[in-house]
Structure formats: C-alpha cells, structure tokens
C-alpha cells in the first residue's frame, strides 16, 4: 500500500498539469488586434457603413414609398407594392449597429483626447442611431455595444432622438475645440472640424423637427450647414471601369444584376417637376424645373444611360444645406408666419439653385429658374396659393414641397409625410398610394429579421403601417 500511496502523490503532482505551458500560444498570429491599429484607420470603415446604410436599400425603399421612385420588377416591384419582409432591413440594421457604432466608440475609447476624432465619431453615431430611430421607431440604444448585455432593450423613439441630440451637443463642443487637420480617412469632410460641427447642428435640427419641437429645431439649424459645399455627402471615386465597390450606390445596383428593377419612371416627383405635365406641376412664372427634372430622372434600363443624380461619380447627400435652410424656413413660418426671415430662408435656397448648383455639370445647360418668392405669392390667389388657403399654410406647403423635391435620395420626404400626417395633413405633398388596397402611407420600415430572431427583448414586428411614437 505504501507504493500505491507514493504513486498517488506522484500522480497528483503530474496532474497539476501546467496551464502556463500553453499560455499565449492562442494569440492570433495571422491577424492584427485592435490595439495595434491606429484610431484613424477605423474611421473610413465606419463611414462606409454609414454611407451605405443612409443611402442604400432602405433609402431606395423610402424613395418608392414617397412617390420618388418606381419598382419595376423582382424584389423592388414587390416592395413598391408594400410587400416587404423583415429580411430587407438585415443589412442596413447591421451597418448601424455593427458597422458604425462599435467602431466609432472604439476610436473614442483609444483616442479620447483627439477632439477632432471624438467629435466626428459622435456625429457619426448620432447620425446612425438617429436614422435608425427615424426609420424603425423604438430601437435599442442605451444598452447596445456592451459585451455584458446579449439582448439590449428597445428604447422609445423619442428617448433615442433625445440621446442623439445630447451626443451631438458633445460632438459640437469637441469639434469647436478641435483643430482641423488633413485626415484622408475622413471621406466626408477630410478633417474639417467646422463642417462637421455644422452637420452636427443640422442633424440636431432634423431630430427636433421629427419630434415637432420646432423652436429648438430653428435654433439648432442656426448653426447648421451654411453652404451647399458643406453638405455631408458620400463621394464616389475610383476607376470608371470598375462597376462596384466605390461608385454611386444607385448606379451600382443598375450596373449589376438589378438592372431594370428600379428607377424614377412616372413617379409623382417626376410629374411634379415635368414642365409638360399640367395636372401636377410645380413650374410657375418664377420656377423652371426643367434642369432638375432631367437631372433627377433615373433610367432603370441601364446604369450608363444615367448622367444625372445617380451618375457613377455623383455624390449622394446625407445631410444638406437645403435641408438646413428649409428647416429654418418651416420653423420660422410656424412661429411667425410668412415673415421676411421665413421668405429669406426659402429664397436663399432658391437663389443658390438659380446658380445651377443644384444639378451637375451635365444639366447646367438645361433651363432653370428660381426667382425669389415674395409674400404676395402666398397670399390668396398668389402663384403659390391658387386655392386661396391661409398664406401661412400656403408658404408652409411650398416649403414642404421644396423639401419633398430637394430631399430626393434622402429620407426627408418619407420623414415629412409621416410627421405631418396627424397635425398638418394639409401640408403633405399629395403623392398617391402605390396600391389602392394599402391602409395608408407606410409609417416605418420593418425591424431586422436578425435582431428579431436573436434579441429576446425585441418586440413583435409592428408592421409598416404602424405609426411610430413621435408621429402618434
């Protein structure tokens, strides 16, 4: 028995097998760890995710549901008729929550002292989460991107907007104290702190507007985007021979296998702009939309037929000068009627368009005219008030219509039709339903199938005709 005992002791010693002998070997020898990567190198990826999420699939769907675009065949024709599944949001949802937010937060974590980068990152996060709240309603935010929380709860839409606005306040503070520098990784503004701060203010105004907090929207927009050059936009680049990876997103889908699926067709927007259309026509003695009509036309039959808004190198606006001015015009008019200030904001935009800056070089030779409006134009019987409604409403109606048109390829029109439905139905651009059987205009986009399947805190998908909190 003694030998057995001593054997057991040896055995015990050997069994204390060494974890230290295998430590560190599992560190990945093939890939770089985030700690090794400079903060700036994470920025472009986050901005690409943001660009595609803001200007991609859901944007095109919103365009079809705003009378801008027409789905002709395949998937887009189904969605045009409001037949949509939760699978359609999977990509966009993941771009916000996986592509943008964890990466910008990582940058903030590793360079908290770099006010330019932290400011930019806060704007990108607020842009992403704000758009998500705007499109889907209640979305996860306060508990996201936390390894401890597998199932983040869904926050109320208004809370998310409020949080985004607060984050933008921080961003503006950071950017105001930052020094601009050459930052090639910043594919929107190349490191210009001032332009970022303007975009942050316009985003604040956008979210206040969606919450119908018009005075706050007006004061935020006062610091917003101050020129068309300062627009936040996705700028395509690269070799014209290479059809995908860096081109205008709409152009890419027509250049690829989706040719023929989606274009403007005879959409309400096209009818509105078309000088030859007399039933719905926004051309008048002071306005000639011929150039914009041609610039906006999207020919679905081939990518190369398009030289306008989806030409392969044509930038896509994400936050714009027009948006900022028109927010101010609307909010000013809501406070003070057809005031000189309100007219001024609208005319400032019209004056810019009258330089031809609203279309690209291919269409600047076409005719356009945007003469200043004056108060008389909105008075009963004026050229913008043939139906003799109150002048204030006529003015607001024109501002909303201008937002509807200028917001092509942005979510502005989709946001407005939902925002105005309850209190200001008279201001809505009266584009028709795509199918007569629909219960009304869609009120939101469906949640991501992936999120619904994996998050135990996800609600039942409410459907696209269910009104979100801020529009109730």
């Amino acid at each position: 028995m003694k030998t057995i005992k001593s054997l057991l002791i040896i055995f015990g010693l050997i069994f204390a097998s060494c974890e230290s002998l295998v430590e560190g070997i599992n560190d990945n020898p093939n890939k770089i760890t985030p700690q090794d990567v400079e903060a700036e190198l994470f920025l472009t990826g986050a901005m690409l995710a943001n660009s595609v999420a803001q200007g991609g699939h859901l944007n095109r769907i919103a365009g079809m549901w705003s009378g801008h675009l027409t789905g002709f065949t395949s998937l887009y024709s189904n969605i045009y008729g409001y037949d949509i599944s939760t699978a359609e949001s999977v990509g966009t949802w993941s771009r916000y929550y996986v592509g943008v937010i964890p990466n910008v937060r990582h940058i903030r974590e590793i360079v908290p002292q770099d006010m330019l980068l932290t400011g930019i990152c806060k704007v990108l996060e607020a842009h992403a989460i704000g758009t998500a709240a705007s499109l889907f309603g209640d979305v996860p935010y306060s508990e996201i991107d936390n390894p401890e929380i597998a199932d983040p709860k869904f926050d109320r839409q208004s809370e998310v907007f409020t949080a985004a606005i607060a984050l933008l306040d921080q961003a503006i503070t950071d950017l105001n104290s930052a020094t601009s520098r050459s930052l090639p990784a910043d594919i929107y503004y190349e490191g210009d702190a001032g332009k970022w701060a303007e975009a942050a203010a316009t985003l604040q105004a956008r979210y206040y507007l969606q919450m119908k907090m018009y005075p706050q929207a007006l004061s935020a927009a006062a610091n917003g985007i101050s020129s068309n050059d300062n627009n936040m936009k996705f700028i395509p680049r690269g070799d014209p021979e290479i059809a995908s990876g860096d081109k205008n997103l709409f152009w890419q889908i027509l250049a690829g296998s989706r040719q023929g699926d989606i274009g403007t067709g005879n959409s309400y927007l096209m009818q509105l702009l078309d000088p030859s259309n007399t039933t719905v026509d926004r051309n008048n003695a002071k306005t000639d939309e011929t150039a914009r009509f041609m610039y906006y036309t999207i020919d679905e039959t081939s990518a190369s037929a398009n030289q306008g808004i989806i030409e392969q190198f044509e930038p896509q606006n994400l936050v714009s000068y027009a948006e900022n001015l028109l927010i101010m015009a609307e909010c000013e008019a809501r406070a003070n009627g057809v005031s000189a200030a309100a007219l001024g904001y609208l005319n400032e935009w019209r004056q810019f368009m009258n330089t031809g800056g609203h279309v690209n070089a291919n269409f600047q030779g076409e005719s356009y005219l945007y003469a200043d409006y004056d108060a008389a134009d909105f008075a009963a019987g004026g050229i913008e008030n043939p139906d003799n409604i109150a002048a204030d409403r006529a003015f607001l109606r024109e501002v909303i219509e201008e937002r509807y048109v200028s917001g092509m390829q942005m979510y502005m029109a989709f946001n407005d039709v939902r925002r105005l439905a309850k209190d200001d139905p008279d201001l809505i651009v009266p584009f028709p339903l795509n199918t007569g059987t629909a219960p009304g205009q869609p009120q939101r986009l469906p949640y991501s199938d992936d999120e619904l399947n994996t998050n135990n805190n996800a609600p039942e998908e409410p459907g696209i005709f269910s009104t979100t909190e801020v529009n109730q």
Partner: protein
Amino acid sequence: MKYNLLYLTVLLLLGIVDVFAQGQTITGKVTDTSNQPLPGVNVVVQGTTTGTTTDFDGKYSLLVNPGDVLVFSFIGYQNQTITVGSQTTINVQLAEDVSQLEEIVISALGFEQKRDELGSTASVVPPEDMVRSGEAMLINSIGARASNVQVQRSNGDPGAGTTIRIRGANTISGSSNPLIIVDGVPISNTTYYGLGNGGRSGGTSQQSRLNDLNPNDIESMQILKGASAAALWGSRAANGVIVITTKNGSANKLNISYKGTYSLDQINTRIPMQTTFGQGRNGVYSPTRAESWGDYIPDRAGGNDVFDESGRYFEATNGTRYYPIVTKNSRETYVDSNWDGAFQDGQFFQHDLTASGGSKDANFFFSLARLDQEGIIIGSNYDRTNVRLNNNFHINNWLSFSNKASYINSYSNRIQQSSNTAGLLLGLLRTPPDFDNTDYIGTYYDNSGQAFTKRQRSYRRYMADSYNPTYNNPMWTTREQESSTRVNRFMVTPQFTVTPIDWLQIILRGGVDYYTDARVYFFPIGSASNISGSFAEEGISETQINFDGIAKGNFNITSNISLQATIGWNINDRKTRSNYALIEGFQVNTKKQTTDLNTSRDASEVANNKIFRRSNRGYAIFGFDMFDQLNVNFSGAIEAASSVKGSYFYPAVDLAWRLTDAFDIGGSVLSFAKLRATWGKVGVQPGAHRFETLAEGGFSYSTYSDPLSISQFGGGFRLDNNLGNPDLEPEIKTEWELGADVRLFEEKLAIGATYYQNRITGILINLDLTPSSGYSTQYANAATMENKGFEMDFDYTIINKGDWGLGIFGNYGDNNNLVTDLQGTETIDLTPGASVSSRAIVGHPLGVLYGTGSKTNPDGSFDLDANGFPQLTDRPVVLGDPNPDWRSGIGLRARWKSLALNVLFEHSQGGEFSPRTLWVLRRFGTTQETANYFTTTEDLVNFDGDLIPAGTTVRGNVENFGGGNVLLDETWYRHGIGGGFGDNQAYNFSIKDATFTRLRELSLSYTLNFPRFQEATKLSSIVFTATGRNLFLWSKIEGIDPEINQYGVSSGFGLDYFTNPSTRSLLFSVAINF
C-alpha cells in the same frame, strides 16, 4: 513471459538430460502454412516435461520413445499433436489461430493489452488484409473491415483524401477525423485545402496525410471506437483513435523480401450519355448554345457540314481548319472519343523491399517502397517513395532503446473537378454529342487575318473566337493545367525504456512528425475561370512534436487482486504554416512557371496562415485484475490546451467480466464469454486563435447589391464582427457502451456486439449574436448532438485443418445521429456554395440534404399547379438524409494447399444522395435520360402548359405527379424546375437512394514453397496474388458512385457535382521471400 522462459529453460535442461536416456532421435522442421520456418515452437512430449524448441530455421531434434505423443505449440498458432511411430523425421505445419492472434491489442498509449481483459471495444484490422485489399491508399484499405467505421474516399483520384467516420459524426465544425497514433505518438492526418484550392466545392481533391504511410510497414492496426479507450488523449479523441504499430525485426536470421505489384485501374461507373440530339435549343441546331436540346441527329442530311470559308477560321495545331458552320449536315457523334480524350486505363506499379533481422540484443526492420501511379484521368498521377528504419537495442537488463524513423516523398498532379468551370467533368459531360473535343488548342484568325495564338477551342466557342471558353475543353483541363503537390515528410519516434526495479517501468518517448507540401496551381491564358492566366504557389508545413514520460508498475494488492498502474505526462506541440503567392493576368502566353509572367506587382496576391497549438496532459490508468475474472480500469487525463480556457478532466472507466471464468462454464460449445461496460469523456479542441476580437481589413459593406469596399477607399480596419471568445471550452462527448464477446465451438466462432450512446455538448459553432450587441457572430460552445448505435463483428472458422481452411467473417453497424440544439441557429451549412447543401438542423441527423423542393399537401401528395406539375416550395426544406441506416461488411477466406481465396463485400443500406451532376445535365440535355424520342398516344400538357396532341413525336418522358400524365420535355428539364441551377429547382427529384453493395475485394493467391523449390532456388517462398478491387458496384444511381463526395474530406456529404469518378482495379503481385 518470464514464466515461459523459465519453463523453456527447464525444458531445455531436461532435454539435455534426456540425451542420456534410451529412445530414438526425432528431427524435423516446423513451418507455417506458407512454409515459412517457425523458430521458437515448443515441442513437448505430452504428459512429461520432456521437450525442446525449434531453432531459427524451424528445426528441432528430440529424443523420444515410440508411442510418445508430441505436442507442437506456438503462440498465435493452433496446437498440433502427433503420435511417434517408427519415423525419424516429423515435419509439422502449424495453422494460424485467428482468435488467438487477436488476443493482443495495443492501447492508446502503445502498450500491449490482452483483449479478453478489455472492457472497451477495439477493432483490429490485420495488416495482411490491408495490404492484400489492393488499395494504394492506407485508409481505404480499412473499408468494410470493421463495424461502424465508415471509410469514404473523396473520389478515385490517385492520392485523394478519405474521410473516416467512426460511430457517426461527433462534431459539426471541427475535424471529423480520428486521432492517429503511430508507435505511441500522434501523427498528422490533416487534409489541408489551403488558399489555392479555391474552396471545397471545386478545385482538386486533396490528400489525407495518413496515406503517406506505407501499408507494408504496419505490424498492427486497431481502431479504438469508444470514449473510454481514448480518454487519455483528452480533447483530440472524440472521433476515436486509430492505433498503428510499425514492424520490428526479430532475433532471427536476416529476412529479405521483395514484392512487386501491378494494378490496372478503370472508372467504375459511367453516366449513360445520349447520341441522338445535337447542340442547340428548342429542337434547332446551334453550334454556340450551351445545351444539347437541338435537332434530331438522324434527321440531318448527312455528309459534310457547309462552312463559310470566306473569312475567319480556327487552325488547330495539326493544321485542321475550322470555319463558321452554315449548315449542319454531319450525323457523326463523338461521345466515346471525347471520353477517351479525358480518361484512360490507370495503372500503378509498386515495389516493396524489406529487410529485417537482428540478434538477441539488437534488431532492425528496414523497408523501401516505391509507388508510381497514373490515374484514370489523363494527366493525374501519384508517386510515392517510403523509407523506414526501425531499431531496437537492449543495452542492458534495465535499459533499452528503440528508434523508429521514416521518410516519405510524394508527388501528385490532380485534375480540376466539381463546381469549377476549369474542371474536367463539367466540360466533358456538358459537351454535346455532335461536338468533337479533339482539336482543343490552336490559332484563331479573325476576318482581318489577325492571329490569336494558343487559343482554347471549346464546344461553346468552336471557333475559339474569344479568350473565354466559358467551360474548359476536357482536353485542355487534362493537358494544359497543373495542380501539383510535392510532399516531404519525416517521422521519428525515439524511446527509452528503463526498468529500475522489476515491478516498475519508466518510458520516455519522443516523436517528431514534420512535413512540407509544395503546391503549384497553374492555369495558362485562356483557361476557364482564369482567362488571363493564373499561377500560384502554396507552401505548407506542419510540425508535430510530442513527448511522453510514462511510469508503469505492477502490484499485488491481495492474492486475488492485482493492480497495474500507469501514470504519465504528455506535451504536444503542433505548428502549421502556409505561404501563398498568386500571379494573375499574364503578359506572356506561355506555360513556363515564373513570376515574370506578370511584371506588374499589383496583380499578385500574397497571403500566409499560421496555426499554433499546444497541449499538455497528466494522465493515469489504474487497472485492477480481480479474482481472475474481473478487470476494472479507471483512467483519467487532465489537460490544458492552448485553445481552451483552463484545464479539463477526461475520466473513463471500463469493466470486463469473464463469465466463463467466473462460473467455470467453458466447454466445447461455449469457449469464452465476456460482458463489458464502459463510460468515458473525450473532447474536440476548439479552433485555434479564437480568443480575441480582431481588427479586420479587406471588408465591404452592402445593403442590396451596392457594396462599398474598404480596399477601394484607401484601406482600413474594423472590429471583426465575429466577437472573440476567451472562454472557449472543448466539445465534450460523454459515451457509455455495453457489450459482450463470445467465442463458441472451440473458439471457432467469435462474436462481439456493442451498444453505445453518446451525447456531445458544447459543440462549437458560429453563433448568431444580436446585431445591436455590436457583433454579428461568435464562435461559441453552443450546440449539442447525440449518437446511438449498435455494432457487431463475427468471425467463423469453419475448417482449418491440414490442406483446408475456410472461414467467414463480417461486421454490422448502425448509428443514429441527432442534432438536438443549435441555440436558435436555424441551420448550419456544412457545404457552402451548393444549391443542395448538407446541413446541421435541429431535430435531424447531421448532414441532412437541404434545398428547395416541391410543395406538398397535408396528405403528402404534391400540391400541383393547373398543368399537373409540382410547384416549388417557398423556401429550402430538408430533402433527405445522407446517413445510411446501417452498413455491413461480409467476407470469406479459404485456402487449399497453397491457394488462398479472399472475398469481401460491403453493403450500405439506406441513406440518400444528391447526384446533382445528373440533375444539371438534364438542363444540358446530354444524358440518355433526356433523349427519349417517342410518339404520344394521348394528349399531354408540358410544364409551360402547352398541349401536345396525341400522335406527336416528341423528345421527353411521360410522368404522373398525381394529377394525371404530363409530358416532361425541354420546358421541364431545361428552363423549368426539373433540371438546372440555383435555388429555383424541384430538388426533391434529385434525391436518390444511396444504398449500395460493392465487391470490395476478390483475391486469389498461390504460394510456391515446396521444399524442392526452396532447395533449388534458395528462396523460402514466392507468393503470387491477383486481386480485384471494387470490381462490382450495385447501386440505384446510374453512373455515379454514391460514395464520392464533392466536398472531399469534410463533415458535409451526400453530394456530387461533376466530381471526379471512382475506380475499380485488377492487381497482380509477386512477393519473393529470401
């Protein structure tokens, strides 16, 4: 053993004493049934202690009295008794005792164990059976020889890898291969696909590293199926362990033998192709269409085609010119000649030279083997050279040393296959019957006379007027492309054995296994998929270093209970490295393999990959032998592995109770009976390097066909959307089994049966995470799976006496697998890229076939459309299960004098297979199935709803899906849902019954060893053997062997897609023993 020596010494002494006694001297020679001398045979006078042993030449002499009965006995052979009469010479031939031969098995640590005392199951495959099977690849030779050991070669390519599945599937994303232990040390059996192969759905077949071993070097091979026997190897043993020992020399005279083998190989089954319809569509000939739904060839005018000879033309290398076809008149077809342009009779020569011998204190075994194989596909080959030198030295009575060393060199060229437009069968089987592939390369002259040299001519580009052939001409695939691999491998296993005191042994065992694999992938300009040319080199190396320190002691606890205790410590380190470099877009149209093919550096791609793993384990076995009837083994290993957080303990217990000893019931009917029971845990290691969340480059973002690629925006990184997992654990398989071993009729019939159940928890999968958590997936211990099954092996020696021997043997195994949990993940695709895929789905066995099918009604009938045709399901559904219901092998061995016959059948019952080759060829209209030409006798509707009135002559088949007869014609096969690509197909009709029976082996051998021959030639024997390998296959699938696997060595199976075919062979060998 010690007892035997003592006994022998006494006998010898007595023998010397006996010299002085009265009597006669008998001399003689003891040989085995092949007339090989048997040294060391005990020759004893029955009932006395008088006796002797035979010398190195098997000779003995003994002083006896007439009437004495001599007993000749030797371990592993049946005793023989001979009564002494008046003779002075008694020569004896001893027959092998099969049941006794199996008595010793080798444990997972490389130690000998008595089988009758084992509680766990071990299948023993006799090495001579493996050698005789005619398989050039070691793993394939195990096929059908052990229950529940499924051996599935990827295809018939020379050197192609093989999947081994023991008791079904034990992991989802990990390796399904068992651990291979050679001479006590683990060796690599990796099948490395690498970057150059272009995924598993296409590319070439890759090798299994176990096949580097020379079957002729193997002394014994055992398959440890259960968890308990393998638990000592902890996290690498869940798929079972194959234990191999290589040969040693013996204290004997020098034995030299040479064996030469020639094999003739052919395709074992071929898809029936049609010869009556030409290239084209809708019954109209077109020389550029992909399909053969063209004109009825017998209706053609005959004679030569009419050409437009005014302008462009293609000139083949032999000067033949091809002009644009104006009118197709020729009725010639080329199905067989096109076939012969790609296939040939394969063959191999194998030479084996062995020498062994030694003295009491030192021995050696040396072998040299050379295999030269040409595959059945022109251009495919496999050459291998093996050298082995095993040495043993007894330095003194407490120290011995052994070293086993081998070197392997192999070279192989493989032909591109499967889902791959540069692959062989894809181009060949889609070729229309009226297109001749022969002139596949030449110069194209356009209308202006400009020449384009080295153009590939293929059936869709018969003028070679484009660089892009769309699919390769099979002549080009076999002759112009290269996919070669060159392997150099060393394996060395040194071992010291120290015996400080008589009850204790200390073993220090090292092992190094190192190989390099240098691969070349070369596609000249104009190859399909690589039209601008592609040249890649990939260098792979793997090193496995292993060390064990083991102490073994024997103790008698009481007079009835003894303990054998083994404790040990192991460290194992594995490193794999690969470097890959690719040049595309050749500037020069040549076949010379140099990076100068493209002088612009930005066209090349460079990548490398490293995998490092290390584990160390302490382990112990306590084996109790109680009351000469009961054996209980407790074993355990505690292991720390680099890819696992913390340490894991793998316990096991097994119990064997010999009923015949317990109740003393042995008799002439029941010779032996044992009950056994085991329980144990084993694991599967997580993939390496998955602890951390990484930074990732090279990504792109898309929402719907609108990707933005980071590399086109100056590069950059993102946090990998796969969240690192620092808490990875091994997958744990817990298994119990119950079994019995019985031998009946004086050990003539041996039966072993086992029932087992296991449950595998913590199976590693890429789990979908909530996107709002910031990550998409995480590699996590999330799935569970179960297996249960029954297996049985038997061996019945009907006769084994004198000139005659006859025996039958066989095995049966079934395994039921069930995936029980995937933590919400709906399906896991084991075969990415296939339209019918093999998947893991909860509630189904692993590997189920999945794809779009036909809508059904609640009663199971088809939900038909208005025309009486099935309608597609909205989403993919489970279509079938590729796991067989059961598998069995049954064999016969017979000998008469010097002739020996061996037969082995294999049967696999049930299971399903999707030969998608046949499905897609319906669309192409090249198979006989699509070429039925008949006159309708009733009005029929086709898939498009067109009415075909009675009396119309049509190409197609009549079918009834449940709504009355309908016509399956081009509308169904070519552009409907009854043949074609992608998800929009009624793939339920592609699923076939995978049941097969094959004659794995039929061999006849003759041994020339009669004494006069031996004296005349000074040879001890010559053995002639003829073997038929895989000669017959009975299967319900015409033209495709259901055993092949598009995805090669993989956990997904049951799929074929233009995968290279399997083979059958006729082998002849001559073995000369000096």
